[in-house]
């Protein structure tokens, strides 16, 4: 039984299709990363899945609900979404920011309940943010900030988590720390995660499944190891990409077109 089902989704913007007939099914506890060159339609796809963008044709189901037929509040109880460049309002405390994730649970007219506060405290604890609770969000480092944004999404307690470029702007150690943290959450909470990533090595190492987009269409979809080694990957990026085995891990190395052909 799939938790998330995307069926024949096409998104037309200004007369051209930025997403063409995309279909996808994801089961519980699966991590799928969407990869592809700039302009391939990754962000459009994840925004369509999150219900923050309407689709031209096709349908997205989460737990058998057509997400565009749900109210914002109902949808926010099924899907947590973090866009590529989240707005972090200066002056807000880390606790208040993460508590925003509980909005769909307590509603607009009620204060967060005890259960909401407990869920926030538990998330802050799990993501090692408990010591920052009273800090102004603007004073956090890049790594702490991204962890806090992830905490807000996890505090929503949804079965599906959608993240658009969650490791942008982080150094390599913080990138791996954040993805490791996310993998732990996927396993412990049986989350279904859809993320977009530009780093193909990390995409291959951390996702169960990769979906490769090119010009709005799916050109490869399958287990990470297979997609990383597929010829469609090099074709999509229009350059040579070599996969090197380093201690059992696939590392994607770009090579110049001349050496790729030799």
């Amino acid at each position: 039984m799939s938790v998330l089902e995307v069926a024949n989704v096409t998104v037309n913007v200004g007369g051209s299709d930025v997403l063409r007939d995309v279909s996808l099914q994801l089961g519980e506890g699966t991590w799928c990363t969407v990869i592809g060159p700039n302009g391939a339609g990754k962000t459009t796809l994840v925004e369509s899945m999150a219900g923050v963008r309407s689709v031209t044709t096709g349908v997205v189901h989460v737990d058998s609900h057509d997400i565009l037929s749900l109210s914002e509040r109902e949808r926010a109880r099924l899907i947590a979404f973090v866009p590529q460049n989240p707005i972090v309002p200066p002056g807000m405390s880390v606790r208040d920011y993460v508590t925003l994730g509980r909005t769909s649970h307590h509603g607009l007219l009620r204060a967060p309940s005890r259960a909401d506060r407990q869920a926030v405290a538990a998330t802050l604890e799990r993501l090692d943010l408990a010591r920052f609770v009273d800090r102004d969000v603007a004073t956090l480092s890049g790594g702490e900030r991204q962890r806090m944004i992830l905490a807000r999404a996890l505090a929503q307690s949804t079965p599906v988590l959608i993240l658009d470029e969650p490791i942008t702007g982080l150094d390599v150690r913080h990138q791996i720390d954040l993805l490791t943290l996310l993998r732990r959450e996927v396993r412990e909470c049986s989350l279904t995660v859809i993320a977009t990533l530009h780093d193909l090595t990390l995409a291959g190492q951390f996702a169960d499944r990769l979906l490769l987009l090119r010009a709005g269409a799916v050109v490869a979809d399958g287990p990470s190891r297979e997609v990383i080694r597929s010829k469609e990957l090099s074709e999509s990026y229009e350059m040579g990409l070599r996969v090197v085995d380093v201690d059992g891990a696939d590392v994607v190395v770009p090579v110049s077109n001349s050496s790729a052909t030799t």
Partner: protein
Amino acid sequence: MVIVASTSVVAMVLCAFGGLAIGPFAISWTHILASLLAHLGIGHTRLTSLQSLVLWQIRAPRVVLGLLAGSMLAVAGGTYQGVFRNPLADPYLLGVAAGAGLGATIGIVNIGDGLNVPTWTPVLAFGGAMLAVACTWLIGGRGLRSTPATLILAGVAVASLFTSLQTYLQQSSTSGALTRVYLWILGSLSSASWHEVLVVLPYVAVCATICVVAGRALDVMSVGDIESRALGLPVHRVRLVVVVASSLGTAAVVSAVGLIGFVGIIVPHVVRLLVGTSYRRILPISLFVGAGFLVAADAIARTVVAPSELPIGVVTALVGAPVFVLVLTLRRNRVL
């Protein structure tokens, strides 16, 4: 937070009491207190009938109207700053001032023929204000598809149009009417009566309550439209409700007291400096601070050049700007 909230309530009560006590006709504060208690069924009033008339028919409605107007303008300004995520927003952002200005000018110049016609001017000002906001809402993305930027730009366009129409009307009016329009634009509480208080009260009560309750939604909206929707907020509906409430309340107030500037933009900012960025705190405290501030400004406006009066808009700016700079400086130096 609790200290700031209780201080603002005490300050508002003191300002209101000061508003009752201050004036060219001397009434001692003990007599005012006794008269207030007498109205609550405790003890007896010691006022003469003339003093009673001045206190209850001239000063009291003026103070109450000032409290209502100040609280509504401050809350509406704070709400607009939140809903448009724009620190420069004030209650007149979507054309309320220009619309009310045009309506009042029509009332004073055309219908009143240069004379003040109390029955029609507020009604036309209110109608003009609501018409301007409706135009802004329709132009700025046909309501539910609007974004903060399109609404603000539409507000600028509508305000320009209404202001130019008002200027055209003023051009063709007599100098007496021109003066009246000018004074109306600067705002005044001098024509306050219990009748006006009763007309304005239901608007302010309902609209200010809606805005204050919306504080939690405005906090969510501080992360932008897309993320707010993803967090479960019906962004367009919330924006519609708070814009209608703020505009309706502001239009009611403006139609009664004219275009009092500065309260709507400065009060929420001063409160923000004191209690932080959460609208759950800013809006209720702005309610009290705005009310107290306007009554204090009115007391100054009617005493410094007595027996004539300064336009209250002049006082709100003259007092408000230094107070704002003072709070900003103290906050920067971590004194507050």
